[in-house]
């Protein structure tokens, strides 16, 4: 026997009442036990006393005792056996509610000891005349499989389930499908993997397909979700069958339950792949739009799930909601998480015709109270400018208006965004530079400062007092953040290369400070490189520092095409909501590096939209460019800078990989950051995010600072460099890049 409660206290009183001769008193005691259980008190000691009250005509009391059993069966396994008799008896009760309750509860007890006793009642229940019992029994098979799969197979429950797909009752069919799918999931992820002939593998045959398509129109909303999920797993034989499934599923778009709608969208997206008829596909896409828009009238949490999925759908089919941008306008009282998703979708839907309406909305949002939302709205203006060229000027005007408000965080964000616009449209909007510079003193965020400094450096020849402006940052150099230091350094060198006569002093000063008083190795390294470049060959320095940079653009997708297809097949699941493959968050929530590379996706999706955008774009467009500009310096530069083994744990790598601390834009705006970002992704096969770029810095460190172990002299130059340990002739860009040093 278990430990009995002491002869006093609450539990003792309960135990007395549970054994009372009066029925009401006993029932009341049970309620009090459950109440204690609910607030988290341990009442497991009362197990035997509660158990005595199990056999009763009072359904409510029975349910309470069952509930108690479910909670404490695990702690008192040896006593659960005492309940078996009542369970078996209840499973033969004339009232179907009691029969079902007994089956349902036994399945939840999860105690090894009583499982064997479950099989007979379950077998009976699966053939019960009452559909309520059968639908409960169907799910119980899945529970049993989870607990002890051999019992399910030995007792032939699986084949019984397969028979039940043809049940006359749609609810039974739906639960059967849910149970089979559940079992399939367990079996297909088992170790070692089961063969595809295993009975637990739920292969949907055309025969089953017909059965569940019929049930689809008749079962409850939740049954429909189960059936639709099963339909999404079906592999069609031919195009005609795909069309047939789509035709049968389309009416579900009219269902009031949002999860039915999304499940239907998923099935259509999957089976549309098998359809080649253009007009039919178009028709399906057209029918999909209105129900998706209607989901925006759901409660905010449902809206959010829908919006995340709409975002994915738009990446695949940008035409899906092409005329519906206005419905995504934010309501003043929308929760922030909804507003942010809406912003992203609005920018996706922007085109020449609606961009004016979008901009006036975004401007309105920029005057709202929530700082985070305001910043995101301003970012959205920048994204609009970059993706729609004809709107750029209007975007700049809106940004100037916003800068005019002189609200600190608005100005700072606008400056950051302006920098991106300068990147995209070089030498187009120089007229705004004075306005930006006028706000110099108000900037206190590193990103905003760095952006403005980059702009000053980039247009140094056109800004009369550039040396003066940069001078203020040089004065406070050691107090600034690394991000700002790096930008200041680069900007001053640019200034020097453009106006050598007037800025000799300042460049000397900044290089001196950066190499002597600065504790960031990245800043020091960069300063050494510049110094060496400038002192050996100013021509080479010009070619490197003032090299032409490719324009940026915003890619249409935020995930790789393969992952996008995978996620579209899982619409409405958590994976599609997170925009991450399932293996990244199930299990232990961690994922190996190889898996990340296989997916070819981002490491963290901290909404680093621009971050991803720039990386991908630079990767795609710059390969050629890098090759070009390498040429000159590579020939002239002596091999004084030696490459060393990379140290993957430098701060730059860390920040690059985590993608959170440093803003890649700032890296991008400087030539070296640009190279590191581009080489990270140049050629999908390279698979060494971040390391390549870093090796530059390290190499310099090895050669100039002499702090790392000296490398074998000859190996430091040319495409054969094995600093990466992966000499691969296929990936020209990075290696040439390395060859530079």
């Amino acid at each position, binding site marked *: 026997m278990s430990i009995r409660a002491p002869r006093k206290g609450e539990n003792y009183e309960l135990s007395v009442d549970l054994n009372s001769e009066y029925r009401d008193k006993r029932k009341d005691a049970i309620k009090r036990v459950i*109440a204690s259980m609910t607030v988290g008190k341990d009442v497991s000691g009362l197990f035997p006393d509660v158990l005595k009250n199990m056999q009763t005509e009072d359904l409510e009391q029975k349910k309470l005792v069952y509930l108690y059993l479910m909670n404490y069966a695990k702690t008192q396994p040896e006593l659960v056996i005492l309940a078996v008799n009542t369970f078996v008896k209840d499973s033969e009760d004339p009232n179907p509610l009691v029969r079902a309750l007994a089956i349902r509860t036994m399945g939840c007890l999860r105690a090894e000891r009583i499982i064997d006793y479950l099989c007979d009642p379950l077998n009976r229940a699966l053939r019960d005349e009452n559909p309520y019992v059968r639908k409960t029994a169907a799910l119980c098979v899945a529970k049993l499989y989870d607990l002890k799969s051999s019992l399910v197979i030995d007792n032939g429950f699986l084949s019984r389930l397969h028979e039940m797909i043809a049940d006359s009752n749609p609810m039974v069919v739906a639960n059967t499908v849910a149970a089979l799918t559940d079992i399939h999931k367990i079996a297909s992820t088992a170790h070692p993997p089961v063969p595809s002939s295993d009975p637990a593998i739920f292969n949907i045959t055309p025969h089953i397909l017909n059965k569940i398509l019929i049930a689809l129109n008749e079962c409850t909303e939740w049954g429909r979700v189960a059936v639709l999920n099963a339909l999404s797993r079906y592999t069609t034989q031919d195009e005609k069958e795909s069309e047939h499934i789509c035709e049968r599923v389309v009416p579900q778009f009219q269902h009031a339950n949002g999860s039915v709608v999304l499940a239907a969208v998923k099935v259509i997206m999957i089976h549309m792949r098998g359809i080649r008829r253009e007009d039919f596909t178009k028709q399906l896409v057209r029918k999909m739009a209105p129900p998706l828009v*209607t989901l925006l009238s759901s409660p905010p949490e449902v809206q959010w799930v829908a919006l995340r999925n709409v975002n994915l759908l738009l990446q695949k089919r940008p035409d899906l909601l092409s005329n519906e941008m206005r419905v995504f306008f934010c309501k003043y009282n929308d929760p922030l998480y909804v507003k942010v998703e809406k912003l992203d979708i609005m920018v996706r839907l922007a085109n020449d015709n609606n961009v004016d309406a979008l901009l006036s909305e975004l401007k309105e949002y920029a005057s709202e109270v929530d700082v985070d939302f305001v910043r995101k709205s301003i970012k959205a203006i920048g994204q609009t400018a970059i993706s729609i060229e004809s709107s750029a000027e209007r975007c700049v005007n809106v940004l100037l208006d916003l800068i005019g408000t002189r609200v600190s965080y608005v100005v700072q964000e606008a400056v950051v965004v302006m920098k991106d616009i300068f990147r995209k449209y070089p030498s187009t909007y120089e007229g705004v530079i004075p306005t930006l510079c006028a706000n110099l003193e108000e900037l206190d965020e590193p990103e905003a400062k760095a952006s403005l400094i980059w702009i000053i450096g980039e247009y140094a020849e056109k800004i009369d007092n550039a040396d003066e402006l940069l001078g203020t940052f040089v004065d406070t150099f050691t107090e600034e953040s690394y991000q700002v230091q790096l930008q200041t350094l680069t900007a001053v060198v640019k200034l020097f290369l453009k106006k050598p006569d007037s800025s000799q002093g300042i460049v000397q000063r900044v290089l001196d400070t950066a190499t002597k008083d600065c504790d960031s190795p990245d800043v020091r390294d960069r300063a050494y490189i510049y110094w060496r470049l400038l002192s050996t060959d100013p021509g080479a320095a010009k070619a490197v520092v003032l090299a032409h940079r490719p324009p940026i653009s915003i890619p249409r997708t935020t995930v790789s095409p393969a992952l996008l297809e995978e996620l579209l097949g899982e619409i409405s699941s958590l994976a599609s909501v997170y925009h991450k493959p399932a293996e990244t968050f199930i299990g232990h929530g961690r994922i190996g590096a190889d898996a990340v590379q296989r997916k070819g996706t981002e490491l963290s999706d901290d909404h680093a939209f621009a971050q991803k955008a720039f990386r991908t774009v630079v990767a795609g467009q710059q390969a050629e460019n890098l090759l070009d500009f390498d040429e000159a310096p590579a020939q002239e530069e002596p091999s004084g800078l030696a490459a060393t083994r990379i140290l993957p744990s430098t701060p730059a790598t860390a920040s690059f990989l985590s993608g959170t601390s440093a803003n890649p834009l700032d890296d991008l705006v400087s030539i070296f950051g640009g190279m590191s970002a581009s080489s990270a992704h140049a050629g999908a096969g390279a698979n060494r995010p971040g390391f390549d770029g870093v090796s530059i810095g390290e190499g310099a460190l090895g050669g100039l600072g002499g702090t790392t172990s000296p490398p074998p002299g000859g190996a430091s130059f040319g495409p054969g460099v094995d600093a990466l340990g992966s000499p691969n002739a296929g990936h020209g860009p990075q290696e040439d890049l390395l060859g530079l040093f």
Partner: protein
Amino acid sequence: MASLIAILDLKGKPLIQRSYRDDVQPSCIERFLPLVLDIEEEGQQVTPCFSSQGINYLHIRHSNLYLLALSKQNSDAAEIIVFLHRLTQVLIEYFKELEEESIRDNFVIIYELMDEMMDFGYPQTTESKILQEYITQESHKLEVQARPPMAVTNAVSWRTEGIRYRKNEVFLDVIESVNLLVNSNGNVVRSEILGAVKMKCYLSGMPELRLGLNDKVMFESTGRTSRGKSIEMEDVKFHQCVRLSRFESDRTISFIPPDGEFELMSYRLSTPVKPLIWVEASVESHRGSRVEYVVKCKAQFKRRSTANNVEIWVPVPDDADSPKFRATTGSVQYAPDKSAFVWKMKQLGGGRDYIMRAHFGLPSVRSESEPPTRAPLTVKFEIPYFTVSGIQVRYLKIVEKSGYQALPWVRYITQNGDDYSLRTAVEKGNPPPVMQP
């Protein structure tokens, strides 16, 4: 599927919980609120779904409660979130209000409901009318033991057989909610009509109903010429009783209705709507002393209609005080908790316009950095016997095998949606406060 469902108070303490699958430990519930706080601290938004250490947390908020579902798999997020909302609805229908106290007082029945509404993480029956037939608060008073109603598993899972009424009646309410957003220059930026057809059904037996609307698509597909106006609904959603495949094939709305009150269908139109009630305010702000409002309102619908219970909400600065109001009609109140004042009119006739003035004091000192808030004006109203879209019920045919006659009653009403807002408060006088350079 969900492994565990719990209702938590705002401190993250579970009030009640039910475990459906073994793979998630109940102790994870206690990690929920700390995680939420962590996310907030990092300056991120707390989204309805997030994952931490392999556990997915899906939650919704209802007044002062969190309804939380935990899952370890790549579950159907929409299904779980919608289910949580459905659970909320059912509990509200059972207890009128869902709050800490009603949960503590009714834990027995909530356990019963949770047991019935979900099995092994799969949602089962969530129709509160059906649940109420066999899970009742007064079960001990019942002489006979409750049995599962046929409806639970029936093909018609929303209606029990053997319903009898002496007088067979159906009430149809066509309710249209208008959402619109007017920009500061007076243009309608966004507008939509959300319509709903609500029914109160007091019919005996298993009646077959067919509803006819002036639906443009149906008129076109059947080649009938419509007398008068027909409307084009952009998206229609039906109660599960409506045969969707039938609607898809020939736009017929045919169904066996649930008993009592329910929402038969909802629809959406995004045809541009002229603001039914136009409001504009001019604001004269004298920093450090006072702010004055002149609010004009105009009813832009036909003279024969009247709007009832009109409320115009005008936002004011948080620190405004000592209000003074003067209105040509209706009454005005200050609602400091909402940083607004509200102008209420019992009735507003079509074509009429009115004006009101408000005056507030402002504290002489004000923090410089705080940007001015720019909440829009919002309007609440109801216009009976009128639909903006022009939708009409053309017929409601009721056929039951006993052959009784039943009368349908139809009412129309147009009201504001959850977002009827106008950004037409224009600052006059002093320019808006700016940060000094």
